[in-house]
């Protein structure tokens, strides 16, 4: 069996809701049936074969080729299997993903991996605001799994994060880790203003000194035994995070946000 491949024929003017094209919904369907599915695009409903050339038959390994930034909801609530996106992806990538694996070679829009439950998401390029966040009004963001971003991330990374790990090789925007309940965010590059705003628990692991609000307290420098274990767990990734040379165990520890519970920590590598 070869991967079920959707090759974009043209770029629709309106955004396209890709949520019907996930492994668990396509399982057991023939190519004809899949071709006849309808995708909402603006106020139009487009047949899948109007938008994509379809080849291959393994519904548990989906490839989307020529993808671009208006393809929203790719891998929504994915429940096993894998999706590979060649190109960019739109908003709500991997929203509510339950398990499985999604890889995107290009850049991704808003709310990627929002309220993700489990699984693995890898983004080759940059990602927009609210990575791993909660939908507006909801109280819990990503609840588990791992996200790896090779480029930069937008604002509000991990807003309301509940559990899971977000690894960012590049920079993160303002409000990184805002309103986090728990979980881990690691940023190798620079971070923006209001880091950890209203953060309750959880860990921000940083390679560079951030601009911290007055509501974070400096708790001194520490050698933390758990850090080598944490870095060990990154070894399996195709990432800078797997490189032994980036690991460290000496950190400056800051506790906050004191305007909230204050049980969260920001760990900054001591150079």
């Amino acid at each position, binding site marked *: 069996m070869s991967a079920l491949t959707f090759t974009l024929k043209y770029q629709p003017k309106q955004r396209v809701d890709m949520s019907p094209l996930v492994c668990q919904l396509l399982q057991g369907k023939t190519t004809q049936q899949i071709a006849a599915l309808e995708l909402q695009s603006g106020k139009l409903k487009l047949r899948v074969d109007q938008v994509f050339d379809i080849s291959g038959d393994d519904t548990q390994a989906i490839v989307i080729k020529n993808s671009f930034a208006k393809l929203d909801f790719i891998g929504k609530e994915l429940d096993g299997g894998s999706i590979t996106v060649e190109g960019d992806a739109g908003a709500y990538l991997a929203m509510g993903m339950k398990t499985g694996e999604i890889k995107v070679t290009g850049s991704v829009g808003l709310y990627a991996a929002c309220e993700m439950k489990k699984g693995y998401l890898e983004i080759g390029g940059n990602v927009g605001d609210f990575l791993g966040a909660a*939908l*507006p*009004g*909801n*109280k819990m963001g990503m609840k588990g799994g791992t996200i790896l971003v090779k480029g930069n991330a937008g604002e509000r990374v991990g807003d309301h994060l509940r559990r899971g790990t977000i690894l960012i090789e590049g920079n993160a925007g303002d409000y990184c880790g805002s309103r986090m309940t728990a979980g881990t965010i690691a940023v190798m590059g620079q971070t923006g203003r209001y880091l950890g705003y209203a953060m309750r628990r959880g860990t921000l692991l940083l390679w560079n000194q951030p601009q911290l609000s007055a509501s974070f307290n400096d708790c001194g420098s520490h050698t933390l035994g758990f850090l080598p274990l944490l870095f060990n767990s990154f070894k399996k990734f195709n990432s800078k995070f797997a490189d032994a040379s980036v690991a460290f165990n000496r950190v400056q520890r800051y506790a906050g946000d004191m305007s909230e519970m204050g049980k969260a920590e920001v760990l900054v590598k001591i150079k």
Partner: protein
Amino acid sequence: MLIKLTGGQVYDPASGVDGQIQDIYIQDGRIVDMPVGDFKIDKEYDLHGKVVMSGAIDMHTHIGGGKGNIARTLLPEDHRQDPVSRSDITRSGCGHAMPSTFVTGYRYAEMGYTAGFEPAVLPINARQAHMEMGDIPILDKGGYVMLGSDDYLLRMLTAKKDQKAINDYVAWTMNAAKAIGVKVVNPGGINAFKFNQRKLDLDEQNAHYGVTPRDILEVLATAVKELGVKHPLHVHGCNLGVPGNVQTTLDTIQGIGGLPMHLTHIQFHSYGTEGDMKFSSGAAQIAEAVNNNKNITIDVGQVLFGQTVTASGDSMRQHYNHKFASPNKWVVMDIECDAGCGVVPFKYKDQNFVNALQWAIGLETFLLVNDPWRIFLTTDHPNGAPFTSYPHLIRLLMDRSFRNEVLSTIHPEAQKMTTLASITREYTLQEIAIMTRAGAAKLIGLKDRGGLSAGNWADITVYTDNTNRQTMFEKPDYMFKDGELVVVDGKVVHTKWGTTHVVQPDFDPSVETGLKDYFDRYLTMKLGNFKISDDEITEDGRGSITVHPLNGVA
């Protein structure tokens, strides 16, 4: 155009018709007598085997005003989970606990409702409330203006102004805010909250003004009576939700001294402190007091299980309740120094002892109050449950075996604390028609509504009789609003706009002198802008104003 509804079984308590087979004629939006001589029927509906009632009226439902929008903003998930798409005749919308305006109108109509009254129109927000209700299709609407925690009234009381001055202020406010009734919420308590009081009993003084809730209730109930406003003072009493508040409620009933008074969502005010959990039902005592005091009317504010949101002007009690918020987010705020507002999402659970007992207390109240003309079917939408649960509630009232079936599934300790299982009463269709139609129209003082005799506006709902009352009331066969067919088989087939019901009691124009100074000094808008003109409601071509008569005035 002459429409004939033929052979339906008519329940029209307003004229004493109880299930007789009657024909109804409709001409120019109103019900008419059978024309004499030769006449041509343009459209006939065969209603043999169908149940015919006038359109239902919800006399207490939060469908307009700022707190609804706060609830919507607070709960986007409520909207995401319940999208409603547009059709050729209806507009899109969303929302389960706090639906959008258009969806509110459609869903009410699809249950056979033709009017809804917003019970908490804050004078300073009245314009927004009317604009919002102006966007609710099909339904007639109206509002009760909220007084009692406004500084101007409290200042008047502190200054010992006479009743005449207070009557003028109340009448002026009703005119300015286009109201049909007056409501008081936690009398003086919303104000006392701002002076750091966290509870206020009936005879406890406001720390700043030295005024007690009892004083406020007396002057307002007197004002409403003396002005001739038909809807009695609409009271959301002190100590909402506090175990033991049944005593406060009984004291309130006694203390009003025979003046007409409507106690709203009384379920939340009927709690005792007996039992291991120090929470028990006071429904029997309340029902006895209501049965014995003919000046008292009540609506229940029934709790039904599921997710909803509580939206109240009672910032004092909502501040206390915030710790039970589910999901855990809430808003309590002051509104323009005039009153307050609290929005707390709630999930009533049948396996939670308190929630389960609240459910039972509401039903006990329904079943123990004898006179259906003085008790009204509400869930205090959305506070006890969204209005869409009314058909389920009607089934609970009309079907004892169903009621006991549900009772046997709730929290076991709550089952032990209620007498519900032993109550055999089942509501009749006529009693339901009184509670939801004729009685409500009479209570609000609506002329030519709530009845099916000639002269009434043709607001008519037709149901198929079904022993499953929920199914029956969920889906009317037909619903006519002002003689136009708007619902067929529980679906909106045509939309129109309802009217806004108001009263216009007289006042001495010199009342504005003192008010103008007060507005200029303290409030965010000028007196001239505060008053809502008729044009603001009618100029879009779809709204209209219907003025209803006062007592003692023809």
